C-alpha cells in the first residue's frame, strides 16, 4: 500500500510538472525548435527583458492588481461590518449577491461588464482602459475579501466592543482599537487572495481592457497567437522560479513561526 501510494504520487507529480519542465528546458534552447534541444543559450532571457511590451504590461498588471485589491479590501471590510448588523432576510440576500461573481463563469462576468461599460462609454465619455479594468477587478475581488473577513468578524466577542465604549472610546476609536486587530488576519488573507486573482486574471480583463492598458496575461495570450518565440518559455521559467521562491519562503517563515510558538509554550 505504501509503495503503491508513493508510485501514484510520483506519477501525478510527473503529470503536473512535465509541461513546466519542458518549458523551462526549452527556454535555454539556442534554436527556435520546440522538440529538439540544439544548444544552450541565455538569448531568450536577454530578449525578454528588452521586450518593452512585456515590461509595460507587467507594470500595468501590478498597478491594476494593487489598486483593485486595496479598494476591494476597504470596500469589503466595511461591508462585513454593515452586513453583520442586518436582519436575517436582507443578510441572506446580500450574501447571495456576493456569491454571484464567484459562481458565475468568468466569461459571463467579463461579457456582462463589457456590455455595461460600452453602455457608459457611449453616454458618459468613459474610455476603456485602466478605469474599466480596475472596476472589473474590484468587482470580482471584493467577494473574496468579504468571505475572508466575515468569519473573523463573527468570532469577535460583542462585549469587547461595548466594553471599549464603556471605557470611553468613541465608536471609531473602538473600531480601530478593538475590532480591527481582531479581523486583521482575515483582511490580510482576503487582500492577498484578491491581489493574486487580479494578477492572474485573463478572461475578465480580456473583455474589459481597452487599447491602452494591456495586462500581462493579455500580452501572453497575444504572444501565443503569433509567431511564437522562446521568449515565452523564458517568461514561464521566471514566473515559475518566482512562485517557487515565494512559496518556499512562506513555508520557511511559517515553520519558524511555528517553532517559536512551540518554544514559548
Amino acid at each position, binding site marked *: 500500500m505504501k509503495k503503491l501510494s508513493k508510485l501514484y504520487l510520483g506519477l501525478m507529480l510527473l503529470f503536473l510538472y512535465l509541461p513546466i519542465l519542458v518549458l523551462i528546458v526549452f527556454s535555454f534552447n539556442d534554436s527556435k525548435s520546440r522538440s529538439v534541444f540544439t544548444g544552450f543559450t541565455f538569448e531568450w532571457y536577454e530578449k525578454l527583458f528588452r521586450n*518593452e511590451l512585456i515590461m509595460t504590461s507587467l507594470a500595468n498588471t501590478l498597478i491594476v492588481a494593487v489598486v483593485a485589491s486595496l479598494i476591494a479590501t476597504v470596500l469589503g471590510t466595511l461591508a462585513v461590518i454593515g452586513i453583520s448588523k442586518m436582519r436575517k432576510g436582507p443578510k441572506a440576500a446580500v450574501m447571495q449577491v456576493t456569491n454571484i461573481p464567484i459562481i458565475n463563469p468568468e466569461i459571463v462576468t467579463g461579457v456582462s461588464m463589457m456590455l455595461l461599460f460600452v453602455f457608459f462609454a457611449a453616454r458618459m465619455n468613459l474610455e*476603456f482602459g485602466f478605469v474599466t479594468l480596475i472596476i472589473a477587478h474590484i468587482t470580482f475581488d471584493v467577494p473574496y475579501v468579504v468571505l475572508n473577513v466575515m468569519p473573523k468578524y463573527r468570532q469577535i466577542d460583542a462585549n469587547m466592543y461595548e466594553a471599549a465604549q464603556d471605557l470611553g472610546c468613541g465608536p471609531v476609536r473602538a473600531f480601530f482599537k478593538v475590532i480591527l486587530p481582531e479581523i486583521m488576519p482575515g483582511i490580510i488573507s482576503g487582500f492577498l487572495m484578491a491581489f493574486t486573482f487580479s494578477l492572474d486574471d485573463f478572461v475578465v480583463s480580456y473583455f474589459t*481592457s481597452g487599447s491602452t492598458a494591456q495586462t500581462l496575461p493579455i500580452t501572453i495570450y497575444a504572444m501565443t*497567437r*503569433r*509567431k511564437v518565440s522562446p521568449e515565452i518559455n523564458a517568461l514561464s521559467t*521566471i514566473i515559475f522560479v*518566482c512562485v517557487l521562491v*515565494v512559496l518556499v519562503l512562506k513555508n520557511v517563515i511559517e515553520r519558524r513561526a511555528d517553532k517559536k510558538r512551540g518554544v514559548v509554550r
Partner: protein
Amino acid sequence: MKRTFMLLFLVVMLVTGCAQEEIELVEEVTLTIEDETYYQRFQNAGISINVYNWGEYIPDGSDDGVLDLNAAFTELTGIKVNYTTFATNEELYAKLKGGGASYDIIIPSDYMISRMIYEGMLEELNFDNIPNYSYIMEKFKNQEHDPDNRYSVPYTWGTVGIIYDNTAIDPEETPMDWDILWNDEYKDSILMFDNPRDAFAIAELKLGYSLNTESPEELKHAAKVLIDQKPVVQAYVMDEIFDKMGAGEAILAPYYAGDAKTLMDEYDHLSFVIPQSGTNLFFDSVCIPKGAKQKEAAEMYINFLCEPDVAYAVTDYIGYSTPNQGAFDMLDEETQNDPIAYPDDAYLTEKTTVYKNLSEDTNQLMQTLWTEMKSAEVEHTNPWIVPIFMLLCILLSIAIVIRRHIRNKKDIF
C-alpha cells in the same frame, strides 16, 4: 491560495532592467526622414496614440538587427505609441463596434474599409498632414473601396496562395490548386483560415463562384463544402501558421503571400504557390476610426509610415508588397520581379478578385454560416449522448428523492 509570485517577478525584472542599459538596444539601422521639422509639432506635448494593427505587421525590433518602428516614431516625434494587435478584419470590426476601446490608427483590408465607410466608422483624413501620400503609386489611389480616397492610405497589398511543405509535396506531380486543401491524402496536415471571408473565398474559388457572391444558395453551398473539409483540416488558425508550418506540424496552408515570403526566408522546406485558377487580391490601408482622440498625431503616424525608408523597412521585414513608389525603388531587382510579391499585371487583372463589401443581409448570413461551420461536428460524438445524459440526470434526481423519502421514514421511527 496566495499567488504572490509576480511581486518577485518584478524585482527580478527590475534588477536585470538596470543592467540592461549597457546592452546596445538595436543594431545600428538608420532611417532617413525627409522633413524632420514636420515631426516636431508634438515633441513635448506628452501625447500618445493607440495603434491597432495586424499581428506580425510591423518591424517591432523582436528580431536581431531589426528596427523597432514604433520606438523610432516615438523618438522622432515624442508621441508615445500604444501598439496592440488583432488577427482578423472581423475581430477588428467587433472590437470597434462593441468593444468600447478607442483607437487612433487601424489597418483594415479593402472590403472592411468600405463596410466601415458605409457604416460611418471612419474619420476623413486631412491629406495636408500627410505630404508623403505622394509616394503612393497612382494605381493604388482611388480604389473601389475608397473611391475618392478620403479615408485610407494604402499600407501593403498582396495575394492569397498556398504554403506547402516541399519535402512532402512535389508541385511537378501534384497540381497545386485549391482542391488540394480538400485532399484526403493530407488529412490532418492542412491548416485553414480562421476568418469567414477568407475561408469562404477559398470554397468559392474551388466551386468557381464569385468571391463577392451574394447568392444565399451559393454561400450555403460554400459553407457545406467547408463543412466537408473539416475532417481533413488539422486546425483553423491565423498567425499561428508561422509556428505550425515552420515546425513542420502541417504541410498545407492557405495564407497571405507576404507571410509566405517571411516563412520561406526562414525555412527551406516551405514553398508558396499562387493557384493559376485565380485568387484574392487584397489591399490593407491605414485609417483613422471615428472618434479618434489624436487625429493629427495619427496623421503624423500615417505620414511616417509613408516615408520611403519606413515603408521599405516594413516591406523588407513583413514581406508584404508595398504600394509606396519610394520604397519599391529601393528593393533589389530580384524582389521587384518576384512573382510571389509582385505578380505580373496580366495575372493580377485577369485572375484575381478584390473582396467587395457585401450587403448587410449577406454579411449576416455569412456570419451565421461561419458559426455553423465552426460548430459542426468533426469527431462524431455519439448521438446517444444527449438521451443518456438526460436519463442520468433524471435517475439521479429520482435517487435523491427516494433516498430522502427513506430517510424521512427512518426519522419518524
